[in-house]
């Protein structure tokens, strides 16, 4: 190729010009952004003061006051996302999950493009057993952020009845975030609950490559084996895992229940009883535990069996009533009395998240509704039930 005279110098001059122009444009843009951010912060300033005060109070251990400060921040600056997110985070920590969902909904309204907001919303809906919301938000999250592991995890949890689809999305989430043991644990939990021993065990092995054994891995390993513990080796292995889970976390409802069931199936009634009794105390609304406890009492001719059968009967009747009310609510969504009644019944069958959500919905429209207020008061007086207390 022949080089034109002077051409080299022209080529050297052009990049310099471009770099200089870019620097000027970049500087102006940066300056503009900084000015805008500064203005934004200034605009947020009163809200920011309350937000920061909330942070200090929270660090000092005064959660209630912190919540108050963040709430004030949202009122001063309703379009600012950050206080909602903080409120949601802390409300979730104190088991006020339905309120956390509502804070996230408001954050989403304030800024629909905020990073991971839809993922958080979908996750929160899963936690409060709100399948319609979970499905909606997780689908939107996947559309908006296809490479966000939390979006795929939430999508999977929202569709966990379709094991194949849920496993696919959890696997994708794991690929995107291979160091996060929670994603694999969720997958393992799905396999355990579906009774898929092979996949469950393989997934648990994967979990143990990224995290040391803990109460959850022991519980899942044991629960996986309980239905198959017909030979003494499998029985001992299941028993060992569940006992270890309880040693690490003595208040685990699920481990107590599974250990009780394990002994019951081995016809070791007396051994089963304390575990089932503990589980019953930890979660009074589990029909499975009531059934197994009644069975154990019946086998040892303990008269307490009759009381447990009666409790099961009542719980089932309440569940039926709740199902009926849910159907009626679909047909009459504006009926506040029906909604309040649904809150009362859902609390009676131990569906706390639904009770909180329903009563909250009633109070938005009718702040003086006595039924809804009573449900909220009762909810606040109840001891916290761990996540593992799902039926």
């Amino acid at each position, binding site marked *: 190729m022949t080089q034109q005279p002077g051409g080299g110098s022209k080529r050297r001059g052009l990049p310099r010009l471009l770099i200089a122009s870019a620097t000027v444009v970049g500087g102006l843009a940066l300056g503009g952004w900084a000015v805008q951010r500064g203005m934004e912060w200034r605009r947020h300033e009163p809200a920011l003061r309350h937000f920061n005060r909330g942070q200090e109070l929270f660090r000092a251990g005064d959660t*209630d006051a912190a919540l108050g400060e963040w709430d004030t921040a949202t009122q001063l600056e309703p379009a600012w996302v950050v206080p909602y997110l903080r409120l949601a985070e802390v409300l979730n920590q104190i088991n006020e999950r339905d309120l956390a969902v509502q804070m996230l909904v408001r954050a989403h309204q304030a800024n629909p493009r905020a990073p991971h907001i839809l993922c958080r919303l979908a996750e929160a809906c899963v936690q409060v057993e709100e399948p319609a919301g979970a499905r909606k938000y997780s689908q939107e999250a996947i559309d908006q952020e296809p490479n966000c592991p939390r979006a795929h995890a939430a999508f999977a949890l929202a569709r966990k009845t379709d094991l194949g689809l849920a496993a696919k999305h959890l696997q994708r989430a794991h690929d995107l975030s291979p160091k996060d043991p929670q994603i694999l644990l969720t997958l393992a939990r799905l396999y355990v609950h579906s*009774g898929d021993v092979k996949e469950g065990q393989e997934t648990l092995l994967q979990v143990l490559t990224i995290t040391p054994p803990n109460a959850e891995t022991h519980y899942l390993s044991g629960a996986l084996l309980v239905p*198959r513990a017909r030979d003494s080796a499998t029985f001992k292995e299941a028993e060992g895992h569940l006992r270890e889970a309880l040693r690490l976390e003595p208040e685990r409802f699920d481990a107590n229940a599974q250990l009780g069931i394990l002994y019951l199936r081995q016809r070791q009634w007396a051994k089963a009883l304390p575990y089932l009794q503990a589980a019953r105390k930890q979660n009074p609304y589990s*029909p499975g535990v009531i059934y197994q406890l009644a069975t154990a009492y*019946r*086998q040892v001719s303990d008269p307490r069996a009759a009381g447990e059968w009666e409790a*099961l009967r009542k719980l089932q009747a309440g569940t039926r009533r709740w199902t009926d009310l849910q159907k009626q609510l679909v047909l009459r969504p504006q009926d506040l009395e029906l909604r309040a009644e649904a809150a009362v019944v859902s609390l009676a069958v131990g569906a706390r998240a*639904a009770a909180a959500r329903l009563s909250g919905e009633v*109070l938005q429209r009718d702040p003086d509704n006595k039924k809804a207020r009573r449900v909220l008061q009762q909810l606040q007086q109840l001891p916290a039930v761990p996540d593992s207390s799902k039926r």
Partner: protein
Amino acid sequence: MRRGHLLLALRLCVTGTGLALLVTGCPPKPPVAPVPLSKNAPPGRFTDRAAAAGIEFRHSNGATGQKRFPEITGSGCAFLDFDQDGWLDILLLDAGALPDGGPTQRNRLYRNTRDGHFEDVTEGSGLARTGYTQGAAVGDFDNDGYPDLYVTAYGGNHLFRNQAGTGKFTDVTVQAGVSDLDQGPRYSLSAAWGDYDRDGWLDLAVCRYARWSPETDKPCRNSLSARSYCSPELYEGDGLRLYRNRGNGTFVESSRSTGLAAFNRRAMGLAWLDYNRDGWQDLFVACDLQPNLLLENGGRGRFREKAVETGVAYGDMGGVLSGMGVAVADYDNDGWDDLHVTNFSHQPNSLFRNVGRGFFENQSVWSGLADPSNPLLGWGCEFLDYDRDGYKDLVVANGHMHEDVAKTVHGVTYQQPKSLYRNNRDGTFAEIRQSVGDLSTATLSRGLAVGDYDNDGGPDVLVNNQNGNAQLLRNEYQGGHWIAFLTQGKQSNRDGMHARIRVRSGKLTQQSEVRAGASFCSSSDRRVHFGLGAASAADVEIRWPSGKSYRARGLAVDRVWRWAEGTSAPQQVRAPGDRKP
């Protein structure tokens, strides 16, 4: 500010978002993968001989795409010896089209020609057209020695009196007072004959499933937004009917006086059994998404509900299940009758082991039945000793109701194979999947009956498949001795229904009651069959419902014995190879 007030304030300031979130039910249980095949299970080959035997029956539910609720339940079938020649005949029921069966509805009655073939004798039998037909119960209600038929159908049930084995049946529904039309058309399913008051005349219990009519049919859609069959929860249960036989060809409706009318459940399957062995027949009822019922017969014309405290109302996670079909047998040979109940997919079938103290243990998981039955939607079921080893095995008819279930639910298919579970003799069962022959053909099975149609000592299986050809599944298993009994009551009901037979061979003792109606909408061979393994003789004791009991020692095996009430020893009916009467 106290937290309570603060949280309330937070709720009050939330802007109407909650109401947008629909309140929906808890998601169903995730699916369970089946356990692998037990390597030690012996073959249990069943060959479909229907076409070769001349049975060309194809069921139709008349589905038009509107997904009307009764289309899901299909129809049943029966083994009965209507002409009393010692060879089982066959009745297959057809639904036709809603609401009254329509012009194409046609049941089929087949006479056994004793050479492995059947002859269609429907024409002139009076049984061909019975409306949108669901189930059949076989029993000699008039004690004339010939089995009569009660046929359930949407819009009106029918009682047919057998005209002395001539192949003709007379519809005596109205005279007998069992039409069940007094409050308009009903949707009845299974029915079973039993002598609950021990007066020597068979009474009749009928499951009425749900309050449905073409006018109240509800439109439903699945997750793919396609038209779909609704959940049964959208229809109220319609409970049970109990008809007491007056002994003069008429019945009195006694649901109220006996206390049964109090239970408006969605009743699908039922069976008479004496669960507490007090001599009075109790009634177990499988209910759809409602607690099952165990109605204990107090002996004074009243029944008391005992399902919850006896442990049979719920699944082992304490929840209601979708009970469909029922089988009763003493599968562990401990002298107490146990219960097997089929359920919806993702609800393992229930095995309730009677421990004999007025209580049943739920053995679904421990027995090994839970895992393999979990992805299947079970309907008809019966215990049978297919390998004649002295322990009752189990056969189950399966098939889903939603055409696109494979797209919407992981691991579940629309057409499903039937299940054969071999009794491992230790309280557990092994599913046999390989070499089971035509049992493995995927179909939409509903009704199932068991009976030894070729009198070779091996219980065979008759299946009515929804919108498919019926299957006559011949048990090809060779080996093991057997003995069977045909009872004939005198003071007790003529069928000898509920007579309890105890057979001892070697160290093994088995017991069984005479029973015909159970499964789902179906009626099995009422002859009582026992597998004996290598034993070459059996000591037998019979206790009649009248209270009389007799013993016979050293009975020859591999034959059917007829035992008449009042005689101390049974008479041989048929020896091996005896084909012609």
